[in-house]
């Protein structure tokens, strides 16, 4: 029948002679339209709150018009004259005209800030020139460099040329501790300014460690949840979920109370005589504090997917393995464990992704050594206002998570992911 239809070009029609496909589309269109209208609010919500911010972050990471918008004439000069052209009087005229206009519009500091990202210490050069530019007389090359000899610096001109393009990959370079040398080649930043690569590595290593700890602790708990009779299991489930219902800040603060030098844990240890008064353990404001608090906070995200995978596994599998001659360890390793891999994958991926982007807990209990890349992103959003760099860092983070997801799909298969 199927073969017949495929070989036969005769168009099927309805009893009143309309083409069947058209009739079907018509009959279904109303239902389709209604279905679409039902999901439309959700679709719009996702577009506005999820897709569009991500697109804008991506855009922000390569787009910074602070210089080009506020200094249009000198930007135009850079466009007309190829790289390597010595700045002539026309260039200086354009520059001074921009400085005058931007000084009046109070935007010269914005342009200066963009240059300052690349060449520290130049911000005040611009603000000062913004104030003084209207008094300058031609020839501007002479009068501007007289105002401040730094205006003749080839490095400054090189930087201005670069930032005159609103679209740039420089923020990505900065995000991996690279910069452009005055000659334009890419080089590493000085050793004492390298921070991001180090932090990316630390973030991923710590996230992996937290994921592992969560698995180590969460697996037996999830097993117990799945194996216990209902009334005990629901009690245990409430205990697992309780942290979920408590504010993140409260939980983190509770850890501060527990772990600090004069905190509960240390005081107990001293009281029990396990450590001396002057040997109090340092468990907070460092990597360890971040690890302990985050493991606790993220634990439910490991337990719940594991539980949802373990719950439907009947005990007969392990029994079958045992009856076939496997020791309890072999039965676990060969039969039970492989069946929980979808849960391990889901929980692991969830915990890893969440911890890679975690911010509040490391900020509160991480001290200096427990800081993660997200703390630096927050720093650039909230404090230094270098949003483009923050966006570049966030994009790298997002890309590495997508890479991880892709790897997971290749190695385990995404269809094997079971979130609940």
């Amino acid at each position, binding site marked *: 029948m199927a073969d017949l239809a495929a070989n036969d070009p005769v168009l099927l029609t309805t009893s009143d002679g309309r083409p069947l496909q058209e009739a079907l589309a018509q009959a279904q269109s109303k239902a389709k339209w209604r279905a679409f209208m039902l999901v439309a609010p959700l679709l719009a919500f996702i577009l506005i709150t999820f897709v569009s911010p991500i697109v804008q972050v991506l855009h922000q990471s390569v787009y910074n018009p602070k210089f080009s918008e506020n200094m249009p004439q000198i930007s135009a000069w850079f466009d007309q004259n190829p790289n390597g052209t010595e700045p002539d009087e026309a260039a200086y005229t354009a520059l001074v005209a921009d400085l005058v206009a931007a000084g009046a519009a109070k935007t010269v*500091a914005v342009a200066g800030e963009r240059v300052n990202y690349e060449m520290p210490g130049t911000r005040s050069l611009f603000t000062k020139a913004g104030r003084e530019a209207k008094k300058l007389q031609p020839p501007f090359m002479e009068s501007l460099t007289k105002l401040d000899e730094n205006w003749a610096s080839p490095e400054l001109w090189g930087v201005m040329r670069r930032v005159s393009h609103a679209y740039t990959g420089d923020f990505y370079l900065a995000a991996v501790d690279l910069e452009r040398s005055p000659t334009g080649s890419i080089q590493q930043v000085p050793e*004492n300014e390298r921070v991001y690569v180090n932090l990316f590595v630390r973030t991923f290593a710590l996230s992996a460690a937290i994921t592992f700890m969560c698995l180590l602790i969460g697996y037996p708990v999830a097993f117990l949840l799945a194996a216990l009779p209902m009334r005990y299991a629901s009690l245990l489930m409430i205990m697992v979920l309780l942290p979920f219902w408590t504010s993140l800040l409260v939980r983190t603060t509770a850890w501060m109370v527990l772990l600090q030098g004069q905190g509960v844990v240390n005081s107990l240890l001293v009281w029990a005589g396990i450590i001396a008064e002057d040997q109090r353990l340092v468990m907070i404001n460092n990597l360890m504090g971040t690890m302990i608090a985050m493991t606790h906070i993220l634990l439910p995200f490991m337990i719940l997917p594991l539980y949802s995978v373990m719950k439907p596994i009947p005990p007969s599998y392990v029994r079958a393995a045992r009856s076939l001659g496997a020791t309890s360890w072999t039965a676990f390793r060969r039969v039970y464990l492989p069946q929980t891999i979808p849960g391990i994958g889901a929980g692991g991926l969830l915990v890893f992704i969440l911890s890679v982007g975690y911010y509040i807990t490391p900020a509160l209990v991480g001290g200096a050594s427990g800081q993660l890349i997200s703390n630096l992103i927050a720093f650039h959003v909230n404090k230094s206002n270098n949003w483009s760099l923050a966006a570049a860092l966030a994009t790298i983070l997002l890309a590495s998570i997508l890479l991880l997801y892709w790897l997971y799909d290749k190695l385990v298969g995404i269809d094997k992911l079971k979130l609940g």
Partner: protein
Amino acid sequence: MKKLLVLSTALTAVSFAAQADVTVMSWGGAYTKSQVEAYHKPFTAATGINVISVDSDNPAPQIKTQVEAGNVSIDVGDVEYADAIRLCDEGMLEPIGMDVLPAGADGTPAADDFLPGAVTDCAVATIVFSTVYGYDNTKFPDAKPTTMADFFDTTKFPGKRGLRKGAKANLEMALMADGVPAADVYATLGTPEGVDRAFAKLDTIKSDVIWWEAGAQPPQLLADGEVLMSTAYNGRLFAAAVAEGKPFTTVWDGQVYEYDLFVIPKGAPNKDAAMEFVKFATSTQALADQAAWIAYGPARKSSGALVGMYNDGKTEMAPYMPTSAANLGNALASSYEFWVDHDGELNDRFNAWLASN
């Protein structure tokens, strides 16, 4: 993206903006309380305009974010000097200017009444505050630290130190502890060698430092015994010591003082009321009143004479003021010129230093 990021802030701010109330963003804790008592309550009593107080770890970046997004909910912000200059340069603030400010209570014109540099194009200083360090007396039965060098000396005083997470003030203090005279600090810090020297000094205590971010944290760290000594805003140490009776001592050697200023963000929803508020709050009496609540020096000379007792009625304020002669022995006025230019660069360096092991 900025629009979207501030969307939530803006939405919560709608209710504020709808009324003709003045929204003031400040630093929280004992400091905000002093402002509420000395500015907000009398202002509402005098004008009938309500003042809404919003807390922040640092209002300046939030002002910048809101103005860039074109969605401003703050009417008045309390910022540090370098930030006031920077925001003003970038056109993010409403101009205020000396001419609108009232003369002092004794008739001195505003231009002469305010301390030098206290009024800029877009900002009016209210107080002089200082970053100092303090300690818990009970932890030092014998020798007590007295100098900035002592703070960095973990051999003489082994134990944890609290420092603000950021480059500003820490680098200056490190240089002073390393023997640089206050007068030469910014000249030294302006050279790469000077920066290296400051970080090298910080390196000596790095493993002992607990970093704080909000002004309310250091007194808490001291009270909990988490740190042996900590840098702090002097008013916070005062509030803990005098108002709460904590056994804290403030060490003034090597203090770094600067102005705190009121600014009005460009596009503030209630600009006129905000202007009235700033004029009221920076009047002689309001500034003098604030000193009864927290140990920050008033930015008007004419207020000085009116500063008397702390609100407990028995504590003389003068010894707790950063600007009192006894405390200025080895003191450094924070340089906004320096920080306006080097904030980004030095904080990048600071972050890198912090993240390295």
